[in-house]
């Protein structure tokens, strides 16, 4: 096998020759002299038989002449002798040929086994590397060479330190592991699996899982190192850890967010039940109003979580139809007011004719989210401006406030899930950082975009664009007039 060739070369201290491609192939049946023996045995035994016959016949002729025995006796004698010799020769032939066949079969089986092992190591996805006592690699399967970025036959002869260097592994190097192994004794054994860093030929480091075993070979110990590239596993682990952290954060934030309305409910329930006689009519109304606001806050939280869950499962459906953007804006503002918002909204759209092919409920949901955010983060006595503009390609909606604005470095993260979650524990602004994430998902499902810009004079301009045309009209459902829809249903879907 190539393994032994390379080791022999390593002992000589030079780079190994490329492995002989013909070695190990199933071609020795024709070339090996031992294989040809049975063919010649047949002729050899035939010659011996004829020679024996001739000898016996000659001896018989001499006997006949000397003793004057009849020809009948001569031929009887000749026949018996021939049968005995033939039987002896046949038995001998069968014994010899059986032995030869068994030897050949064992040799073929050994060769097939070696070839199979070669194919197994060649087909392995993990790197299988043998390391000599000097720390040089004596053998690597193709996966090892691919893993570390070397051409075929490029790894044998190199230092193991060059592919799994100690400097990238703060805990210990492979040599340390070898030393530990040597201390354990000279018998076969392994030190288990360790995670280390591999080094590709180009200098890139990547995480590997290394399994080291000592294999005895003719009185010497050969180190077998099996290396697995665990980059994908590490990436998956990091993703799981991030999602777990997000989930943990969500639970913290949701729990925190629920404690506030629960405090309101509990506090005012005590007042209304135990101290009702002491409450003035105004205090009574105030208590009920604040309970209602707290209930709204809980409902929003639950709806946000529900929508986020549907997004995660890919179940947020989009039902497109022809709608008028101006009407969508008017209805979104009306419904925001219906939910108790007392902010002044300035409707500044001038385009009344444009039509949009989109899901009206979902677009209104985006507008609600943006209007709600603008209301939450705007100072009192400032208004929020909302308008749309359109061209042949898309319709762009704007919701502009006079709030504190969004720092440039946070704009890219603003639409990420739970972005507000980092800060929500440190302020009482309702919400758990899902609103803008939901808005972006809806806009993306329409093939659009959403971003935040600085507004001239202070504040933010949240804007999103929706392609005007949508899919071809021949597969579109029949257009409906949004003004005939029941507004209460839309309020319930988000509020």
């Amino acid at each position, binding site marked *: 096998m190539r393994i032994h060739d390379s080791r022999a070369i390593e002992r000589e201290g030079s780079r190994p020759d490329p492995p002989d491609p013909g070695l190990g192939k199933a071609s020795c049946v024709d070339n090996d002299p031992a294989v040809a023996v049975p063919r010649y045995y047949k002729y050899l035994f035939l010659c011996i038989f004829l020679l024996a016959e001739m000898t016996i016949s000659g001896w018989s002729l001499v006997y006949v002449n000397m003793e004057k025995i009849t020809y009948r006796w001569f031929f009887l004698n000749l026949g018996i002798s021939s049968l005995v010799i033939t039987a002896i020769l046949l038995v001998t032939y069968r014994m010899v040929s059986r032995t030869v066949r068994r030897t050949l079969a064992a040799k073929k089986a050994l060769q097939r086994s070696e070839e199979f092992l070669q194919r197994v190591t060649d087909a392995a996805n993990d790197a299988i590397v043998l390391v000599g006592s000097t720390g040089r690699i004596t053998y690597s399967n193709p996966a090892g060479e691919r893993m570390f970025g070397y051409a075929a036959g490029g790894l044998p002869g190199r230092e193991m330190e060059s592919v799994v260097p100690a400097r990238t592994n703060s805990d210990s190097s492979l040599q340390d592991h070898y030393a530990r192994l040597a201390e354990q004794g000279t018998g076969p054994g392994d030190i288990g699996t360790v995670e280390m860093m591999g080094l590709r030929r180009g200098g890139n480091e990547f995480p590997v899982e290394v399994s080291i075993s000592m294999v005895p070979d003719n009185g010497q110990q050969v180190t077998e190192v099996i290396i697995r590239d665990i980059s994908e596993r590490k990436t998956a682990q990091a993703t799981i850890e991030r999602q777990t952290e997000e989930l943990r954060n969500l639970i913290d934030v949701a*729990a*925190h967010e629920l*404690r*506030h309305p*629960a*405090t*309101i*409910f*509990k*506090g*005012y329930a*005590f*007042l209304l039940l*135990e*101290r009702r006689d*002491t*409450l003035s009519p105004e*205090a009574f109304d*105030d*208590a009920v109003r*604040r309970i209602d*606001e*707290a209930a709204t806050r809980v409902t929003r939280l639950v709806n946000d979580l529900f929508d986020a869950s549907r997004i995660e499962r890919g179940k947020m459906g989009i039902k497109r139809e022809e709608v008028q953007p101006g009407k969508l804006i008017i209805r979104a503002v009306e419904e925001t007011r219906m939910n108790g918002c007392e902010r002044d909204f300035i409707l500044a759209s001038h385009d009344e004719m444009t039509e949009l092919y989109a899901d009206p409920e979902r677009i209104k949901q985006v507008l609600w989210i943006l209007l709600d955010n603008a209301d939450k983060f705007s100072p009192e006595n400032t208004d929020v401006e909302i308008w749309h503009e359109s061209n042949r390609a898309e319709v762009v909606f704007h919701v502009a406030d006079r709030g504190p604005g969004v720092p440039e470095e946070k704009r890219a993260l603003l639409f990420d899930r739970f972005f507000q979650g980092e*800060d929500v*524990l*440190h*302020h*009482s602004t309702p919400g758990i950082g899902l609103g803008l994430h939901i808005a972006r998902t809806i806009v993306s499902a329409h093939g659009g975009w959403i971003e935040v810009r600085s507004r001239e004079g202070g504040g933010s301009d949240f804007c999103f664009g929706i392609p005007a045309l949508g899919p071809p009209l021949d597969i579109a459902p029949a257009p409906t007039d949004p003004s005939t829809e029941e507004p209460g249903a839309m309020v319930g879907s988000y509020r």
Partner: protein
Amino acid sequence: MSDSPEDRRLRVLVVDDDPNIVAVVSAILCGEGFEVFEATSGKQGLELASTTSPDVVLLDIMMPEIGGFEVYRRLRLDPRTENLPVMFLTASMKPEHMNRSTELGASGYITKPFSPLALVNALKETCRLGGESSIVLKSF
């Protein structure tokens, strides 16, 4: 000569960035005979603490700009408020926050949502002991 606590209404400063929480706590305490001062930020709470001479402060921990622990630290640095009893009133049930409160020597740690009567009793007990209490009320 100032009135003793037994002779006048107990004065409570409520500091929380959520106006709804401030409103409900204030409504409960006013109904129980407390005199309540309301602050919706740490900065406003520090100002009122030094100007209104409350008997006890109910202080939220997680607030923007100046958080509850920072407000507590500044109260202790001010000679006018260095001995003022402070009870944290927070939505946080994190052990690190509870431990921090204990380390700082706060008079109490009350989590939201709270029992109104338990809150009232805790405030009265804290005032009676002159801040030498260490009350922990967890929501249930």
